[in-house]
């Protein structure tokens, strides 16, 4: 599945959950499925700046050039979002990550009900993933 197709599937899935409480509850359930980030990756280098909460991300490339994302946060809602991001990134190329619009959250009720400070935080996460993808593509 392409990055674009994965996003479309997520939008359908989240919007099918009903009201925004259920959508948030789903995000939190996703948090439980996010694999733990190794302790040595909880560093300043992996910390996302501009987030109200603490968020660490580690984007890496496999031998075939496709990417995978490891992440952690001190809030479950952000961990849930990170789990969805990890699913989107997994197996994609750096080019897809950099070029395709990350708009699945905007197409659900989630962003509408996110406090604006949180929306800024999520943009910072996406920006860091794109920057890290660009760095990996030039390796």
């Amino acid at each position, binding site marked *: 599945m392409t990055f674009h197709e994965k996003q479309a599937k997520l939008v359908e899935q989240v919007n099918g959950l009903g009201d925004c409480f259920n959508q948030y509850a789903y995000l939190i*359930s996703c948090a439980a499925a996010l694999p733990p980030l190794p302790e040595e990756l909880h560093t300043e280098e992996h910390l996302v700046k501009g987030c109200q*909460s603490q968020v660490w991300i580690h984007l890496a490339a496999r031998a075939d050039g496709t990417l995978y994302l490891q992440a952690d946060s001190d*809030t*479950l809602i952000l961990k849930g979002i990170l789990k969805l991001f990890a699913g989107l990134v997994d197996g994609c190329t750096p080019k897809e990550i950099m070029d395709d619009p990350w708009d699945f959250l905007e197409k659900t009720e989630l962003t509408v009900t996110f406090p604006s400070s949180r929306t800024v935080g999520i943009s910072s996460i996406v920006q860091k993933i794109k920057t890290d993808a660009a760095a990996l593509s030039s390796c």
Partner: protein
Amino acid sequence: MIDFQSVRNDFPILSSQVHGHPLIYLDNAATTQLPRCVLQSVREHYEKYNSNVHRGIHYLSEQSTSHFEAARAAVCRFLGANSCREIVFTSGTTDSINLVARGFQERFLFPGDEVITTEMEHHANLIPWQEACRRSGAVLRVIPLSETGDLDLDSFHAMLSPRTRLVAVAAVSNVLGTVNPLEPIIEAAHRVGAAVLVDAAQAMRHLRFDVQALDCDFLCFSGHKVMAPAGIGVLYGKEEWLDKLPPVSFGGGIVEHVSQFEAAYTALPQRLEAGTPNYPGAIGLAAALDYLSGLGLEAVARQEDLLLQAYETMLRQFPRIHILGEPARRAGVLSFTVKDFSPYDVSMLLDKLGVATRSGQHCAQPLLERLGTAYAARISPAFYNQLEEVPAVQAALERTLSVLEAAK
């Protein structure tokens, strides 16, 4: 006996639906809602006599000025101040404290002098003093808290010295709800010749202030925590102090005469109100204080105490919830942490069920650090909240925690 159910109907916003649920607004320590009479007073101002104050030679300006100055008189009466010259309109508590802090820095603080504040202060009553001390060479001292979240008054007494120039203290903590014993603090400070500034932002609906009886030198509060519009606040200062405070903001409205190279300043209170003041805000504030007086501040405080106790009893039923502090007297707010969960997640989920709470650092990072947490959730009811909302909030919390627990 006031029917608080019908009082609720005075506040149009409280009948809102949020995310498909009836709004339960429990963030009153941050901002209170406005009753119709306050909204009406501001609307009437703009519809009937909007014009700049103190300067125009025409009917509307005269009307606007007279309403603005009547608002000052209303604040003066509300606080029991000696004269309208002691009431300076500002943009809020932060602005009021900054005005005093910068004035002190310029005129009264010298290297080796001391300013005392407390471990429970809002950043607004901490950072201005940090800066004033840093810039003047004075020393900032901080009264520690006891384990219960009360001020350690023994430490305070030990700190006082002839070098103490000012004590800045909150009447009520915005995190713990601690009601501080202002009278003995003021008395002790005055014995060493220090002035006392009271940050009353959180206290105005809980305590009846008579500034002359209290004998504080400065008292600050914001309109948006007493049912008035945002952007208006008050600095009360004894005339003898305000007279000595230099203006820290300069411009129109504060001068008697200006030449190319110097200016002679006008009398109080205008001397400290440079530029166009927020007269619609002041008019709204006067209407709000009038509204609160009509209900009776004692009745308002009693109702808020009743609600706070009901919320405290409810929160204590949750083993995961830890309420911060057990002060001798608490008013207005309950802050809490939830074992294993971020307060952000809790507040965010509660919001989706229509319950408005606040989570974060509450502009009191040193206090939260002292309490051993980075963030806390906070519930702050106002008199227009209903006891019947408590079980609904309990159900919302149960639902929220069950979602969070399932994800653990």
